[in-house]
C-alpha cells in the first residue's frame, strides 16, 4: 500500500525539524508562560506588555525596574535634574558594552529615541516620547530631526530637554520605547535585526533563539556590565494563549511561572485563593464602558449619569470576574503616592430612575433600544450580559448585546459606530496622566466623541505645573469632571494581576502596580 511507503517518509522528514532549536536542549533554568507569541522584539515597535517584558531582559534603558517595579539606575549611573524640572543630564556607566563588544554611548540613546519618533519607523508608541521638547513636531513632520532636544555632548553624557516638568520621567526612561538599540545592527539588517542570528543588545540577557509560536530562549549576556547580578543562565518564555493549557503546563511542572491573570482559567480563580503559589495584586489598569456622546441618547449627560448610577459593580466582580477585583469609581486606580483618585457616584437606582424620568423616559418608556459593543471574549460577554440584565431591571430600558471580532470592534470604536462600548486601559507609567490624557480633545484613544474645554485646560495646566502636589490637585479636578460630572465613561472595575509561582523555590518576583517583573531579578530562592 502506498500509505506504507509515503507516510513513513513524511514522518521522517518532519522528525528532522522536531529536534531542532532550543527545545531539544535540557530544560531552561526558568520557564515562564508569557502569553501570546511576541509580535516583535524591536523596542521601538513594541506595544504590548508581554513583548515589553522580554525587551527589558534584552535591553537596558537609562533606568531599569527592580522587582518592585521601581525605576533604579540602569545604563545611567547618575543624573542631574535642573531646578525647573525640565532638563535631565544623565551620566552613563563607563563600562557598558553591547553584546557584540561595542561600547554603549549616549549617541546610541539619542539615535534610538529619534528612530522611534521617525515616521518611517511607524512606532505605535512614539507618543510616549512626546514629553521631549521637539519630539512631537518632528514626528508630525513639522520640524527637522535637529529639533528633538536630546543631546549627546560626549560618549558618556546625555542631556534631555523636556517640554514640561515630568515628575515621572525616570520611570519613562525604563519604558520599552526608551530602550536603546544598536545602530549598526539595525541599519545593516533593517526589519530583520531582531532575529537571533543578527540581534545585538545591552541587557542582562541575550537572544539565543526565537521559535514561532513556541518560545523565546534567553541566555545570560556575558558582556553585561554587572554579570554577577544575573541569577539564571537560561530562561525560556513560552508562547501560550489558552489559559487551561498554561495552567496545565504549570501544574505539571513544565512551566515555573504564570505571568498573567489571563493565563489562569477564571473558573478556578476562587479555588486558588489561599494557595501559597497564587499571588494576586492590584494592577494599574481599569475595565470601563464608553458612551458615544455624539448621538442620542447618550449625548444627554443625564442619561449617561442614570446608566452609571443604575449599575451594581459589586455584582459584576462577584459573579463574573471573580479574581477579587476592586470596583472602579474612578478611572485611575489607587496606588500612585500622593494622588487621590476622585470617586464617581456610587450605585443609586432611585436617582437613576429619576434622572431618566427627567430626560423624558419615565420607567424607560419610549427609550430607544441601545446596544453594548464588545470584542469577542468570554469575560466581555459575561460582563455585558450582567450589565444588560441590571439596566433592564433597574431602568426598564432595552439593551442589546453587540459582539464583534477584534478588528471590526476597533473600527467601530474609531468611527464611533456604537452606543456603549467595552474598553480597558493599562497605565504605561505610574502617573494618572497615562489614563487622563486619553480623554483630552482629539486624542486617538478618546473614542467617545467627548470634548470639554475645562478638562483640556486642567490637563494642560497640570502638565506645566512644576510642584508635584499642585499638579496632582489639578489632575484630580480633571478626573472629577470625567467620572463625576460629564461621565463619557463608566469605570467598572480595576484589574488584578495574578502571578503563579512557588515561593519556596523562586524569589525576585514581587506583585506590583505596573506588573513589572524583570527576568534578571528572578532566581532560586535564597541564592
Amino acid at each position, binding site marked *: 500500500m502506498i500509505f506504507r511507503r509515503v507516510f513513513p517518509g513524511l514522518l521522517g522528514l518532519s522528525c528532522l*525539524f*522536531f529536534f531542532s532549536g532550543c527545545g531539544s536542549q535540557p530544560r531552561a533554568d526558568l520557564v515562564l508562560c508569557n502569553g501570546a507569541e511576541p509580535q516583535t522584539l524591536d523596542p521601538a515597535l513594541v506595544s504590548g506588555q508581554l513583548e515589553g517584558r522580554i525587551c527589558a531582559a534584552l535591553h537596558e534603558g537609562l533606568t531599569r525596574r527592580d522587582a518592585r517595579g521601581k525605576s533604579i539606575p540602569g545604563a545611567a549611573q547618575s543624573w542631574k535634574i535642573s531646578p525647573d524640572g525640565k532638563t535631565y543630564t544623565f551620566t552613563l556607566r563607563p563600562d557598558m558594552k553591547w553584546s557584540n563588544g561595542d561600547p554603549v554611548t549616549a549617541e546610541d540613546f539619542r539615535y534610538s529615541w529619534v528612530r522611534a519618533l521617525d515616521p518611517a519607523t511607524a512606532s505605535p508608541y512614539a507618543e510616549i516620547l512626546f514629553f521631549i521638547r521637539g519630539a512631537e513636531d518632528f514626528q508630525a513632520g513639522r520640524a527637522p530631526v535637529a529639533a528633538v532636544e536630546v543631546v549627546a555632548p560626549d560618549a558618556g553624557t546625555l542631556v534631555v530637554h523636556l517640554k514640561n516638568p515630568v515628575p515621572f520621567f525616570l520611570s519613562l526612561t525604563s519604558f520599552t520605547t526608551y530602550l536603546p538599540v544598536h545602530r549598526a545592527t539595525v541599519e545593516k539588517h533593517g526589519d530583520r535585526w531582531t532575529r537571533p542570528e543578527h540581534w545585538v543588545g545591552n541587557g542582562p540577557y541575550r537572544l539565543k533563539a526565537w*521559535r514561532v509560536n513556541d518560545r523565546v530562549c534567553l541566555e545570560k549576556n556575558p558582556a553585561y556590565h554587572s554579570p554577577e547580578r544575573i541569577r539564571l543562565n537560561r530562561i525560556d518564555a513560552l508562547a501560550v494563549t489558552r489559559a487551561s493549557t498554561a495552567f496545565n503546563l504549570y*501544574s505539571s511542572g*513544565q512551566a515555573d511561572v504564570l505571568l498573567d491573570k489571563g493565563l489562569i482559567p477564571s473558573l478556578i480563580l476562587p479555588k486558588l485563593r489561599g494557595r501559597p503559589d497564587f499571588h494576586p495584586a492590584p494592577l494599574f489598569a481599569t475595565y470601563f464602558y464608553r458612551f458615544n456622546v455624539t448621538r442620542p441618547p447618550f449625548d444627554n449627560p443625564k442619561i449617561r449619569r442614570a446608566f452609571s448610577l443604575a449599575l451594581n459593580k459589586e455584582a459584576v466582580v462577584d459573579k463574573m470576574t471573580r479574581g477579587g477585583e476592586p470596583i472602579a469609581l474612578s478611572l485611575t486606580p489607587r496606588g500612585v503616592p500622593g494622588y487621590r483618585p476622585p470617586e464617581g457616584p456610587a450605585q443609586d437606582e432611585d436617582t437613576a430612575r429619576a434622572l431618566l424620568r427627567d430626560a423624558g423616559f419615565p420607567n424607560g418608556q419610549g427609550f430607544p433600544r441601545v446596544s453594548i459593543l464588545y470584542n469577542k471574549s468570554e469575560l466581555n460577554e459575561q460582563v455585558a450580559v450582567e450589565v444588560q440584565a441590571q439596566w433592564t431591571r433597574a431602568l426598564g430600558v432595552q439593551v442589546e448585546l453587540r459582539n464583534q*471580532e477584534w478588528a471590526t470592534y476597533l473600527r467601530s470604536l474609531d468611527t464611533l459606530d456604537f452606543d456603549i462600548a467595552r474598553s480597558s486601559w493599562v497605565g504605561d507609567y505610574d502617573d494618572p496622566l497615562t489614563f487622563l490624557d486619553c480623554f483630552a480633545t482629539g486624542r486617538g484613544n478618546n473614542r467617545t466623541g467627548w470634548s470639554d474645554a475645562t478638562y483640556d485646560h486642567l490637563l494642560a495646566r497640570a502638565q506645566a505645573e512644576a510642584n508635584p502636589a499642585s499638579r496632582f490637585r489639578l489632575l484630580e479636578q480633571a478626573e472629577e469632571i470625567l467620572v463625576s460630572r460629564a461621565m463619557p465613561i463608566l469605570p467598572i472595575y480595576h484589574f488584578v494581576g495574578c502571578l503563579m509561582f512557588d515561593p519556596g523555590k523562586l524569589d525576585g518576583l514581587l506583585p506590583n502596580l505596573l506588573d513589572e517583573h524583570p527576568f534578571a531579578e528572578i532566581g532560586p530562592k535564597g541564592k
Partner: protein
Amino acid sequence: MLTFLARRFISSIPVVIAVLALCFLLVRIAPGSPFAAERALDARTKAVLETKYGLSGSLPEQLLRYGSRVLRGDLGDSLKFRGRTVAEIIGQSLPRSLLIGSISFTLALALGIPLGAYAAAQHRGKGDSFFNSLALLTLSTPTFVLAPVSVLVFAFGLKLLPPAGWGTPSQLILPAFCLAIPFIGAAARLTRAGLLDTLNSDFVRAARAKGVSEASLVYRHALRPAILPLVAYAGPLAANILTGSLVIEEVFAIPGIGQFFVNGVINRDVFLVSGVVLVYCFLLLLFNLMADWLTALLDPRIRLSS
C-alpha cells in the same frame, strides 16, 4: 501517466490563482485594519505602514502588487509579527503540523480500515453494532471536548503523558491521538460501507462459490475495491489533518500552522492568511491528485489517460 499529471497540473493553476485572489480580497474587504490596536494609531503612521507593505491604493492595485510578488516567490511579510516573513513563519510551523498530522493520518487509516473491515465481516452481529456505535461516538465527539478530557485522564489522572508542550516524543502522543480519533471513526464507517457493498457483488459470490475462505475473501479480494470511497475521502482529509487544527494546537501548545488560519484572519494579517491558504490549497490539490492516482491503481476499470 505523464499526460495525466501535466493536464492536472495545468488545470490546477487557475484554481490556485482564484483561491489566492479571493482570499486576499476577502481579507482586505473585511472591516478593520491590520494595523489597528487597542491603542489608537495615528493616520500618518497607518499610511506609512500601508505604503511600506504595499497595501496603499485601490484593491486591484494591491492585488496586482501582491500577485507579482508571489510570482517572484515572495509571500510577503507578516503584518502582525513585524520583521518576520510569511515564508519563515510557514517554514517553521508547517513541519510541526506535518509531523503531528502524518502520525494522526497513519493512525486514522491503520486503525479505521481494520475496524471497518472487522465490522463488515461481522455484519449485523454484536461486533458490528459495537464498532458502529464506537465509530459514531468518535465522530460526534468534538476535539474541544476530547482534548481536555484526554489531558485530564492521561496527564493528570494516570500521569502517563505530559499535558502539553513540544520537544519530546511523548508530547506527540496525546495530540496525535486526539486529532486522529474522529477520522478513525470516519475511516471505519467508510470501509465498512464499501465492504458491505462489495461483499454483495457478483465476483465475491463467485469466489465464495469456489470455496475461498471468508477471511481471505474480505481481506484479499473485497477490501481493495471496497476502500475506493475511503481513498476519495482520504485526499482532502490528508490536506486537512496535515495543516493542523486550532483547537489541538492551542490545547497542547503545539507551535503549528493551524492557528494562523484563524488568528491571521482575526488580525487581518492578509499576507499570512493568503500564505497559509496557498499551502492548504497546494496540499489539497496534491492529495486529491494522489487519491485519483491511487483509485486508478486499485480499480482496474479506471484508466488515467482516458
